[in-house]
C-alpha cells in the first residue's frame, strides 16, 4: 500500500487540534450545585473554564462492575450523534450509593467511582484498587458546535446582510475563547489530495484520556496489523480507527484497516480493566506506556521510585459525544465478559462454518466449482464450503448471476449440498448504477441511497463502475435489503447458501482515502462523518435480518470485512487483503487475538495470503496456523496462481491434508467453545494473559494462543525452522506452570518458561492443558455435516492432582432449537481414577453419536481393564497404551446417558 493515500494525524485537522491539548492541558470543571443523584446514576453540569461553554455529564452504574460516562453539550446548536445499534440492548443499570464530600463517591457493588470537581476527573476502583482514571491528564477536549464566523466584510461575496453578520459574530464571540484554534486551516473545510470536505458544521471533535494505574500494558482497539500489545505512540502517529479498504496493507503499522472496535484494555498482574469508547466517527488513539527499557529502569532506580506514570490512552474522535464504558474487571476474563455483556457475542455458528472453507477470486463457472469440490473427494480431503467472489454476478449486480458462467446455480448448489457442503456467495453494498437493474431502480425511486450535501444520490466508483450506496441507517432500507435475500426474490440460491459482505467500509475507489466523503448525508440528517465506522455494521444488520427471515430455522452465517463494536453479533470477520508472505502469516495470530478480546472470536486470515503466490512451505505453515484460528478459509486474488492443495507436490498435499484432518478432529471443541462464548462472553481464542495474568513474560506473547483454557497453540510461522521457542506460562510469580501435553505424543511439559521444541514439516505445536478434557472426533469425513453421528473421543489430560474436567456441547448443528433446550451440554470430570459425566440442563437432543474411545494422559501407570457402569450394569473395557497415554477401548456409551468409568489398578 502507498501510505500517502491515507491521512496522518497532522493531515487531519481535528486530530491535530485535539492532540495539541497534550502539551497545554484543558480546564474543565463541574459546576457546583448542578449535581443530581438518581438510583443508578448521577448527573452534573460541566464547564470549560476558558470559553465558559457548558456540558452535561452523566455517570451511570451498570451491572457487572461497569460505569458509563456520557458528556454532551448542554445546549448544542444541533444534536450531536449518539451511536445506535452497537450495544446489544439497553445496558442493565445497577443501584448506586453516593457519598458527597470534597469529592463525590459513587459505589456500586465492588465498583467505585470518585469524581473530582475541579479539575474534572474521575477515578475508578475495583475492590478499592485504583484501576482507571478519566481525565487524569486533563486532556478532555470538547469542541462545541458554533456558527461559522463570516468572512470579513471586505471579502464577503455578497453584501446586504451586514447586520445579520455582525450579530453572528457577536454570538460566536460570546462562546469562543480567542485562544481556541478554530480558525486555523481545516476547521471549516479541509482538503486531502484532490478531495474537498465541506465541513458545514465546523469543528466538533471530542477527546478524553484514560489512565490505567494498575496496568503494565495496554491492548485492544482493533483493527491494526500490529502486535497484540499496543505500542507507545510517542513520536509516531496515534493508532487510527477509521474503516478503510487498504490494499496490500503494511504490517507493524498503526494505520487504520477495515474494522474499528474502540475497546481498550489495561492489564497488570493484579487487575485488568477496560474502556469502550463508543464513537463511530473517525478516531485516533494515542498510547502512553511505560516502556520498561534500561533508561526507565535506571531513572526509577535513581529516583528511588517504583512508581511511574501509568499507561494511558487518549481517544480523539471527530464528532459525536463522549460515551465511554469503564469496565473494572478485576480479571482479564471478567473484562472480556463485561464487554460482551454490552455489545454481545457471535451466536452459536452452524457447525459447517467452523470447517474448512475453500475460496478464490474467482471460481470461474459451475464446472470449476463442481470440479474443485470433486477434487477434494478424489484426494480424500475434508472441505465444507465453496465460495464465490464477485465474478459470479451478472456484471457486479448483486442478487443476480452471470447466466453464461452459471446457467444453473440451483443444480450446482444441490450438487454441493448433497455432499454435505455449502456455498457462500458475495454480496457487496455498492449498487451498480444501471437503469435496467431492479435494485438500482428501487433504490433510486425510493430514495434509498446515501445522499450528497445537495440531496442527490451519491455516486462513487467501485467494482461495477459507477455505483451508489444504500443508506442502511434507514430502517426502511434495511428492511428492503433484508427482503432481497428472501428466496422468492433471490430465487437462484437456496436457504443453505450463506453470505459474504465485503467492501463495506464502504470502499469507494475514487473517494477520499478510498471511502465515502465525510459530508455525505445519511438517514436522520447525520453526516457520514458521524457514522462512518458504523456503515458496515448497519449493512450486516440488514443481511442478518434477511437471512433470518429467509429461513427462521437456520442460524445465518455472514462474513464481513468492515466491523464495529457489536458487529460480532452478526458476522465472522477476516483480516482482509493480506499478502502471501511470512510476516502476514505471523500477523494472523496477532490480529485475531486482538479481535477476539474485542468481541470477534470468529476471526481468521486468508490462508495462503490474498495477494501473491505462496511457496509450498509458506502454504503448508499457513494451513497449519489457519487450522487453529476460528475462521479457516483459503482465499486468493484473481491474479494469483491457482493453489488448491493438489496443485502442489504430494508432500505438500499430505501436510495440508493432515492439517485439515486435525482441524476437523477438534470441531467438537471449537463448537463447544462457541456455545460457551454465546453463553458467557468468554472468547474462544485467548491471549496467554487471560489465564496467566500474573506472568509478565506472557503479557505480550502473540505468536501463541489459547483455545479456551484447553489448548495452547504455537503455530510454526517462520521459514525453514527445525525448532520453535514455546513459552509455557506460569500460574504464579514463582514460575510454577500447568502441565501441558503434546497432542500428538502426549509428552508432558512440566515447567514454565521457554522450551525449544523440535518441529518437522508436519508438526503443529499444540498442547493440551493438564486438568482439561477435550472432546474430539477422529473419524474422517468429506464435510463436517457428515460427522453428525460419528462417535467422540474424549482426551483427558491430568493435572498435578490427577484431575481434569471439560465440557461438550452438541445439538443439530444448524437450527435455533438449542435455544429451546434441544441440546446436550455435558461436563466431564475425572478424579480419583474415575471419569463421570454431569449434564448441564436436561439432555434433550437425540444424538446417534457415542463415545468411541477415551484417551487419558498423565496417569503414570497402565491400568488393568477399566470398568464402565451404565444404569447399574458394569462392563470391562480393554485398556492399551498409545504413546504417552492410555486408551480405553470402546466405552460405546451414548452422549445423553450417564456413566461412570473406573480405572482399576
Amino acid at each position, binding site marked *: 500500500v502507498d501510505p500517502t493515500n491515507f491521512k496522518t494525524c497532522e493531515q487531519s485537522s481535528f486530530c491535530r487540534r485535539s492532540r495539541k491539548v497534550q502539551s497545554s492541558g484543558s480546564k474543565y470543571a463541574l459546576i457546583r450545585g448542578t449535581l443530581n443523584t438518581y438510583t443508578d446514576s448521577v448527573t452534573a453540569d460541566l464547564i470549560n473554564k476558558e470559553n465558559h461553554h457548558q456540558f452535561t455529564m452523566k455517570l451511570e452504574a451498570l451491572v457487572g462492575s461497569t460505569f458509563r460516562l456520557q458528556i454532551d453539550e448542554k445546549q448544542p446548536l444541533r444534536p450531536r450523534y449518539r451511536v445506535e445499534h452497537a450495544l446489544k440492548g439497553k445496558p442493565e443499570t445497577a443501584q448506586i450509593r453516593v457519598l458527597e464530600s470534597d469529592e463525590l463517591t459513587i459505589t456500586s457493588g465492588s465498583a467505585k467511582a470518585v469524581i473530582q470537581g475541579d479539575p474534572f476527573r474521575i477515578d475508578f476502583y475495583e475492590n478499592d484498587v485504583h484501576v482507571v482514571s478519566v481525565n487524569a491528564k486533563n486532556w478532555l477536549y470538547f469542541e462545541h458546535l458554533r456558527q461559522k464566523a463570516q468572512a470579513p466584510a471586505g471579502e464577503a461575496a455578497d453584501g446586504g446582510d451586514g447586520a445579520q453578520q455582525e450579530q453572528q459574530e457577536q454570538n460566536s464571540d460570546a462562546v469562543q475563547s480567542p485562544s481556541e484554534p478554530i480558525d486555523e486551516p481545516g476547521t471549516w473545510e479541509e482538503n486531502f489530495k484532490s478531495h474537498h470536505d465541506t465541513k458545514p458544521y465546523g469543528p466538533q471533535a471530542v477527546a478524553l484520556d484514560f489512565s490505567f494505574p494498575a496496568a503494565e500494558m495496554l491492548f485492544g482497539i482493533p483493527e491494526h496489523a500490529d502486535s497484540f500489545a499496543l505500542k507507545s505512540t510517542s513520536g509516531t502517529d496515534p493508532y487510527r480507527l477509521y474503516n478503510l479498504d487498504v490494499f496490500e496493507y503494511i504490517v507493524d503499522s498503526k494505520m487504520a484497516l477495515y474494522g474499528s472496535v474502540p475497546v481498550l484494555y489495561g492489564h497488570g498482574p493484579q487487575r485488568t480493566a477496560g474502556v469502550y469508547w463508543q464513537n463511530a466517527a473517525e478516531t485516533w488513539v494515542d498510547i502512553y506506556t511505560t516502556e520498561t527499557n534500561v533508561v526507565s529502569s535506571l531513572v526509577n532506580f535513581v529516583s528511588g521510585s517504583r512508581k511511574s506514570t501509568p499507561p494511558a490512552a487518549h481517544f480523539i474522535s471527530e464528532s459525536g459525544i463522549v460515551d465511554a464504558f469503564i469496565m473494572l474487571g478485576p480479571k482479564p476474563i471478567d473484562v472480556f465478559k463485561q464487554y460482551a455483556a454490552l455489545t454481545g457475542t457471535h451466536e452459536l455458528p452452524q457447525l459447517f462454518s467452523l470447517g474448512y472453507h475453500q475460496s478464490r477470486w474467482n471460481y470461474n*463457472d459451475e464446472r470449476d466449482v463442481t470440479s474443485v469440490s470433486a477434487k477434494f473427494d478424489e484426494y480424500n480431503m475434508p472441505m465444507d464450503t465453496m465460495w464465490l467472489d464477485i465474478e459470479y454476478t451478472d456484471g457486479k449486480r448483486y442478487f443476480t448471476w452471470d447466466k453464461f458462467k452459471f446457467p444453473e446455480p440451483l443444480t450446482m448448489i444441490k450438487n454441493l449440498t448433497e455432499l454435505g457442503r455449502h456455498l457462500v456467495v458475495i454480496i457487496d453494498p455498492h449498487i451498480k448504477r444501471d437503469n435496467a437493474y431492479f435494485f438500482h431502480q428501487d433504490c433510486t425511486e425510493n430514495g434509498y441511497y446515501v445522499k450528497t450535501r445537495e440531496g442527490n444520490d451519491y455516486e462513487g466508483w467501485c467494482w461495477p463502475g459507477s455505483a451508489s450506496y444504500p443508506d442502511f441507517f434507514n430502517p426502511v432500507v434495511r428492511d428492503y435489503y433484508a427482503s432481497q435475500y428472501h428466496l422468492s426474490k433471490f430465487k437462484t440460491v437456496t436457504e443453505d447458501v450463506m453470505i459474504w459482505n465485503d467492501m463495506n467500509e464502504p470502499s469507494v475507489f475514487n473517494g477520499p482515502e478510498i471511502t465515502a466523503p465525510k459530508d455525505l448525508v445519511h438517514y436522520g440528517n447525520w453526516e457520514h462523518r458521524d457514522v462512518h465506522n458504523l456503515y458496515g455494521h448497519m449493512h450486516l444488520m440488514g443481511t442478518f435480518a434477511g437471512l433470518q427471515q429467509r429461513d427462521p430455522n437456520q442460524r445465518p452465517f455472514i462474513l464481513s470485512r468492515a466491523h464495529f463494536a457489536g458487529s460480532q453479533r452478526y458476522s465472522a470477520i477476516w483480516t482482509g487483503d493480506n499478502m502471501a508472505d511470512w510476516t502476514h502469516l505471523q500477523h494472523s495470530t496477532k490480529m485475531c487475538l486482538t479481535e477476539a478480546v474485542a468481541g470477534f472470536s470468529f476471526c481468521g486470515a486468508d490462508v495462503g495470503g490474498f495477494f501473491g503466490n505462496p511457496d509450498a512451505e509458506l502454504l503448508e505453515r499457513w494451513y497449519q496456523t489457519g487450522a487453529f484460528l476460528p475462521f479457516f478459509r483459503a482465499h486468493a486474488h484473481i491474479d494469483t496462481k491457482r493453489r488448491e492443495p493438489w496443485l502442489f507436490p504430494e508432500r505438500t498435499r499430505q501436510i495440508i491434508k493432515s492439517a485439515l484432518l486435525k482441524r476437523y478432529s477438534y470441531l467438537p471443541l471449537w463448537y463447544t467453545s462457541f456455545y460457551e462464548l454465546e453463553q458467557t462472553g468468554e472468547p474462544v481464542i485467548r491471549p496467554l494473559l487471560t489465564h496467566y495474568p500474573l506472568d509478565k513474560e506472557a503479557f505480550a506473547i502473540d505468536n501463541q494462543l489459547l483455545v479456551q483454557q484447553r489448548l495452547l497453540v504455537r503455530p510454526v510461522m517462520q521459514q525453514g525452522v527445525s525448532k520453535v521457542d514455546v513459552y509455557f506460562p506460569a500460574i504464579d510469580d514463582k514460575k510454577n506452570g500447568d502441565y501441558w501435553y503434546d497432542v500428538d505424543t502426549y509428552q508432558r511439559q512440566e515447567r514454565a518458561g521457554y522450551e525449544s521444541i523440535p518441529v518437522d514439516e508436519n508438526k503443529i505445536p499444540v498442547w493440551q492443558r493438564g486438568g482439561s478434557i477435550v472432546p474430539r472426533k477422529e473419524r*474422517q*469425513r*468429506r464435510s463436517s455435516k457428515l460427522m453428525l453421528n460419528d462417535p467422540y473421543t474424549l482426551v483427558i489430560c491430568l493435572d498435578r492432582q490427577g484431575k481434569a474436567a471439560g465440557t461438550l456441547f452438541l445439538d443439530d448443528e444448524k437450527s435455533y432449537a438449542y435455544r429451546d433446550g434441544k441440546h446436550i451440554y455435558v461436563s466431564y470430570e475425572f478424579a480419583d481414577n474415575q471419569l463421570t459425566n454431569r449434564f448441564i440442563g436436561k439432555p434433550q437432543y437425540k444424538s446417534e453419536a457415542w463415545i468411541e474411545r477415551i484417551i487419558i494422559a498423565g496417569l503414570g501407570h497402565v491400568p488393568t481393564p477399566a470398568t464402565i457402569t451404565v444404569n447399574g450394569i458394569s462392563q470391562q473395557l480393554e485398556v492399551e497404551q498409545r504413546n504417552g497415554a492410555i486408551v480405553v477401548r470402546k466405552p460405546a456409551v451414548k452422549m445423553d446417558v450417564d456413566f461412570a468409568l473406573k480405572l482399576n489398578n
Partner: protein
Amino acid sequence: GEVPRPRGVSLAKAALYQPQADGKWSCLDGSKTIPFTQVNDDYCDCADGSDEPGTSACPLAQFHCTNKGHQPVEIPSSLVQDGICDCCDGSDELPAVGCANTCIELGAAAAIKRRNEAELHKRGAEKRQEMISRGKQMKADRAARRSELNARIKEQESLKVEKEQLKQNAEALETEAVEAFKEQQRELDAETAQAEQEPQQMRVEASLSFVRYDTNKDGFVEVTELMVDMNLDRDRNGVVTVEEARYFLDERDRMDLDAFVTLAWPRIKPLKMLADGLFQPPKAPAEEEELPQAADVEGAELHNPEPSEEQADMETGAAGEEEDDGEDDEDQYDDEEPDVGVGEATPEVETTTAAPAYDPETQRLIEQANEARNAYEEVARQIREIEHEVKEIDEQEGKDYGPHEEWAVMDGECYTYEDREYVYTLCPFDRVSQKPRNGGAETTLGRWDQWIGEGASKYSRQKYTQGAACWNGPQRSAIINIKCAMEPRITAVSEPNRCEYYYEFETPAACDSDAYTASAQSMHDEL
C-alpha cells in the same frame, strides 16, 4: 456362490479374513492379534485399518464395493456410512439410508458408453490411419527430399570450386584487357575526350559491370548471371527472380556488351548506387570518370521523376516484412510517399547515356568474365536455396508428430472456437491465439512447445508457451487437452488461471482403437 467374508472385503481378499482356530485374527500388517469378533466392530484396532474394512472406524481402511453388474471399486473409509450412497450397489451405507442399487443401469449405460466409444475410436481410427499414411508419406518425402538435397549440395559445392576457378581466370584476362583499353582511351585528344567523356564514362562503368556480371565469360550477361546480384532484388524478398533479372535485360534472356551498355546498365545503375547508399541520378555532364560520390542536387532536380506507384508498393511491402505489425508502418510509409526525392531509387529513370565502346577483343573478355562471375554466383545461390530448404525440413523433423506421424498433417492447419467474447485459434505445432470478437488486436497465447501428457497418454496434451506477456504477470501459455472424435475441432476454451489457457480439442488423430480396446479389456478383466 458367495464366499462368506466380512463387509467391505473383496472376493480376492476373502481368504485373509478367516478366524484362526482360537477365534483370533491377525491384522494384515501383523501388528496385532485381536478376537475375530472385533473385525468390523466399528472400532479401529489395527494400525493399518485392516480390521475395519466395512466401517468408517479406521482412517486408512478401504471399503470394497462389489457393484455386481457394474465396476467394483475401493472407496476410502471416510465415505462409509456417511449417509451418502457412493457404491452403486449401496453397500457402503446401512439399509436405513435406502440406497438404491443402480449398478445394473449404470453397468448397462457404461457398456453402451464403452461401445459408443469403441465405435468412435474404431471409426476415428480409420481416419487416423489415413492421417498416419499421409504423415508417414510426408516423413518419407521429407527424408527423400533431404537426401536429394544432400546429394545436390555436394554436387553444387564441387561445382562452386570449379566455377570459382573459371571466374578467377576470366577476371584476370578481363582486367588485363580493360586496363589496356583504358590506356588507349587516355591517349585520345582532350576535345574528343570531352565530347565523349560522358557517354564514355557510362560505357566504362557499364563495361566494368558487364565484365563482372558475365561470370562465365561467354561475352553475354545472362538472366542467371544477374540473379546472383542481390542489389537487383527489386521486391526485396531475398531472391532475384528470373522475372526481376529479365527486367534488367529488357526482357531478353541474355545480352551482349553493347546492348547491356545501352539497355541494361541504365536500369541497373540506380540500384547499384542505392546499394552503395549514395544514390545519385545519372547526369549528363560528367566531369570525372569515377562513380559519383555525393548526391548532386541539381542533377536530382533535373532527372528525378516522381516514383511510380509500383515502386511505392515495393517499398511498403519490404517494410511490412521487416516489421511485424504493419498498421502503423503502413501509415508511416503513406506519409512519406510524397516526399520521395533525392536519395530515393528510381529504377525506371530514363537515360540517353551511350555505352562505352570497347574494342571487340576486350569486349569479348569482359563478357567472358561476366559469364564466369554469373556462373559462380548462380552456384552459390543454389547452395543457399538448398540450405534453406534443408533447414525447413530439419525443423519439421524436430517436431514430434506422434509415434506414427499421425499429427503431421495438422501442422499448417488452424482451428477456431468462438465464445461470448473471443475467437480462439489453435494452429497445431505452431501457435495459439485469442482475438476479441468485437475487434481489437490478436493476442498470442503461446507458441508450440511440447507434448505433456503423462506416461502412456503423452499424446493427449500439448503445451504452448512464450505467449504475449500479461500486464503485471507472466507470459501467456496454453494447454491443449485432446480427445478422439471424427472431425477436428475445439470444443471449449477456458482460463482457469490468469493467463493460462486450457483448450479442449478433438481430432481423429487421437482415436487409437487398439489402445482403447486394450484399456477396455483390462477393465473387463478386473470385472
